[in-house]
């Protein structure tokens, strides 16, 4: 069945999301509402399940044979884990940028164009490539060497290439899992600026372990932590200024002020 674009306020809504890796209960009872065209940051100590939750949003966890998901992930009001939903359709609408830049071993042009091609894009491919690279703030740096390998670029440029690649299939949402953790501070800042510009028409969910980054870049912040038996859960969710200035939870406050984590 097709996912119909609706005017819902929330880009993604989870209801009692639980994730298991085999017998291990990795994340429990996540109820989260991601606002449209906003940047939501997922923060928390490492191992608390941020990546796990993020990968639920475009069914990337399907790739892990031991992973099992309970609960709903609503996208345009439709649970993407319903049996009649094809994960390929979901991923076409919800793109992903990974921790380590991973361009294809192809030319810059093909890196951007490939996703559109296999998704049946019928328009002007050159224009799409240019537009996507421009949106990813990479066009000026690569416009003269579109035939060069994606791996000839610097780390920061590679990551922006991956963002351009994700943008080229016109997703509603882009998931970013610690997109700047492999980059130097200047390259990181450029990505952050880029996220701001992109948020005008796409929803961004970003996992970060860098608190300043979360504070600088996001509109909403979800704080995750773990129970003593290492099951992750969402401790607090709210607008970013509120989380960082007046957290409701003591645990959140301890984490944010650097007392643990």
């Amino acid at each position: 069945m097709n996912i119909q674009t609706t005017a819902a306020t929330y880009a993604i809504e989870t209801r009692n999301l639980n994730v298991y890796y085999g017998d291990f209960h990795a994340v429990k009872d996540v109820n989260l509402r991601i606002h449209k065209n906003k940047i939501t940051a997922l923060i928390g100590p490492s191992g608390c399940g941020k990546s796990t939750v993020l990968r639920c949003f475009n069914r990337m966890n399907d790739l892990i044979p031991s992973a099992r998901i309970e609960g709903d992930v609503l996208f345009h009001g439709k649970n993407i884990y319903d049996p009649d939903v094809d994960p390929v359709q979901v991923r076409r609408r919800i793109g992903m940028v990974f921790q380590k830049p991973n361009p294809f071993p192809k030319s810059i042009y093909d890196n951007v164009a490939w996703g559109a091609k296999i998704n049946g894009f019928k328009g002007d491919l050159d224009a799409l490539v240019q537009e996507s690279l421009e949106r990813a703030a990479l066009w000026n740096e690569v416009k003269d060497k579109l035939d060069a390998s994606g791996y000839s670029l610097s780390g920061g440029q590679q990551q922006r290439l991956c963002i351009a690649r994700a943008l080229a299939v016109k997703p509603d949402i882009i998931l970013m899992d610690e997109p700047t953790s492999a980059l130097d501070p200047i390259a990181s800042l450029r990505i952050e600026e880029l996220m701001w510009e992109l948020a005008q028409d796409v929803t961004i969910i970003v996992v970060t372990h860098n608190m300043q980054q979360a504070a600088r870049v996001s509109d909403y912040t979800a704080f995750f932590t773990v129970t003593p038996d290492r099951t992750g859960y969402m401790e607090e969710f709210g607008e970013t200024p509120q989380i960082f200035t007046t957290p409701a939870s003591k645990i959140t406050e301890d984490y944010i002020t650097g007392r643990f984590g």
Partner: protein
Amino acid sequence: MTSYFPEGDELQKFVKRRRQKGLIWRSLFLLATTLGVIVLMVLLVTIINDSMGYAAVAYKIAPDELVVGFYRGMMLDAPRAQTYTDLDDLARALAGNPNAVGLLDPAAFQAHADILRQVQVAGGDLSGVVVAVSKDNDWVQNVTILELTPLFTVAETWSDVRPGWPDAPVHRALPEAGSPALDAFVTQVYGDDPAEQPIEALLAMLAQHRSAGALRQFVAEKPLALRTQEEVLAILEEQVLEPTVVETWSLYESLFDRAAIKEAAAGMPDAHLEFRRWITWDFITSPQSSQPEYAGVRTAILGSLWVVFITLIFAVPVGIGAAIYLEEYGSGSWLDQLIETNINNLAGVPSIIYGMLGLAVFVRALGPLTSGAIFGVGDPTTSNGRTILSAGLTLGLLILPIIIINAREAIRAVPQAFREASLGLGATKWQTIWHHVLPNAIPGILTGSILAISRAFGETAPLIVVGASTAIFLDPSGPFSKFTTLPIQIYQWTARPQAAFQNLAAAAIIVLLALLLALNAFAIYLRNRYAVRY
């Protein structure tokens, strides 16, 4: 402050001891490498040692004797040719006849220089023989090598040789057969190598030495006009010269023990010593033969190529397919694990077992299919399944596990990040495999497959079980032909008693090694050509 780590002298000794340990290991590894290299060198040297060297060849008629005898006969049979036992008689007879031309040795000519005149041969005088005419002959000053031929054989009149000369009949005064002057003349004017003779001369030689019946049969097989000089030469060699290799010597003996070889050869009447490279172009392009002089490896090379071709088109696609399934689609269920364990074990099964399997399945059970009988295209000489197809499929089974294991390795080495990136863009699993996994795995898959193919190329035991023919003289014509392969051929030759076959086996081993080397070089080329750099 007490330190728990060694300090001062103790530290020095400690570090030294650790370094010594490393040095010992390093030397051991070097030793292992050297040993390997030495063994390889010894192997190569042994093979090359056998692949060339002196051979004592006995001919029924020696090649030079055949050619010289033929032309000598033509000269002696020429019209108005007169032979003389005494060269003084010859000189006097020649001097008395201005229309005569004659041959003498230089000493005899000097003795009669007052009554004879030497004819200059264009391009340098002949050695050991003088072409002479009477002092009364006033037209012949010089003559070309080409003119010498008609002058001493077919020409009726002098004007036949050169239009400007008179119309007088040519008389010939020749020393008797067997005299050095006559042989020197023939050797220098016509040569003594059959390979240099025109096809007409070769055919005449053939006619001289073969019965009319044999000649008619030769003509019936293929009209003379269509025969090439090489073909006639080959027939001549096989039916008239009939060389047999009496004994052979290795390269080492040929280089350093020549005296002993000469001595041994002297004890063999009629045997000529020849330095032979057993691996020649003829050897590669000739079909198999029961006589070592004519035996070549073409049949075996073609057989090997056919078998390996069948192996390739069967095992490579199936192997890659299975590897893709197991790596990309397999869920790790107990069934998958069982299959996996089985494949790994199959790679270690002795090859003869595959031969037995091939015999039972492809030759016996699927006989009608593998013999081509049900397609009606079977080779009439084989009504059973001992064909190239059976052999190729058997070897295919043999290398299938190797291909699967190598291909899985290559597929597994493709970074997971590419799969995630591809799927994350909304690609299907198959699109991901086709566009990202396979292109990145292909160098490894190809290398593994080619190494497996090399293994099939050198395999012998299973093919013997499946029924490789040991004596096959016809090139294979398709998958339903009987076959032999290079390793089988080598195996068969080494088992022969005649010395020459041992040398042929060495030559065939070199051919096999060269083919394997070419295959491996091709694998390296492919790997470098398609290797993706990231």
